């Protein structure tokens, strides 16, 4: 089974609203990463947060990590139609260099 599971599976919001996606994982991690995928394209890295970090920002993105709950959230503020995509979390551990992905959240931002 996959390490990361995103919630919700699909999210539809109005342009200008904030979008929040959650990721839960099962084992201890070294880091957690978020990626974006536009339809039919490869994945693009958004942000990496290490296990000793609690929050990280990049432009309109804010990621939090709670290792006690084995969960992370990705917040996209002031969403735009161009943010429409699928978003995936991925985890890396100290014991190997496997990068394991969750099943993703499909975000639709309506103009």
């Amino acid at each position: 089974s996959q390490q990361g599971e995103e919630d919700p599976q699909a999210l539809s919001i109005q342009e200008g609203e904030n979008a929040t996606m959650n990721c839960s994982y099962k084992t201890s991690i070294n880091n957690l990463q978020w990626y974006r995928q536009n339809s039919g394209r490869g994945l693009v890295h958004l942000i990496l947060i290490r296990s000793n970090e609690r929050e990280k920002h990049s432009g309109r993105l804010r990621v939090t990590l709670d290792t006690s709950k084995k969960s992370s959230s990705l917040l996209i503020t002031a969403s735009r139609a161009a943010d429409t995509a699928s978003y995936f979390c991925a985890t890396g551990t100290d014991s190997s260099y496997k990068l394991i992905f969750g099943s993703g959240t499909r975000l639709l931002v309506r103009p």
Partner: protein
Amino acid sequence: DAGITQSPRHKVTETGTPVTLRCHQTENHRYMYWYRQDPGHGLRLIHYSYGVKDTDKGEVSDGYSVSRSKTEDFLLTLESATSSQTSVYFCAISESTQGWAEAFFGQGTRLTVV
């Protein structure tokens, strides 16, 4: 964009035939990954490599083998293709000198097994 190329981009093959997908990088990154993406499953790791001739299994390795004889190329072989291996396959590369780093993805190979 990271220099990573997958070939072919599209392929249709018959059940029972062997198929090889190629991932080529120009970044000299140490780590290379093969994933498959299917609806409802996200990306699942097939195999990965942490150096030349160093590979390991991922989550869904049955029916697949890999080889990495030089840094820039990571080959994925479906030994005897089955319809369940119809999927989109992604290659990714990563380099970490101080722990983990971001991965860069190729554009994908759409494989159809008929």
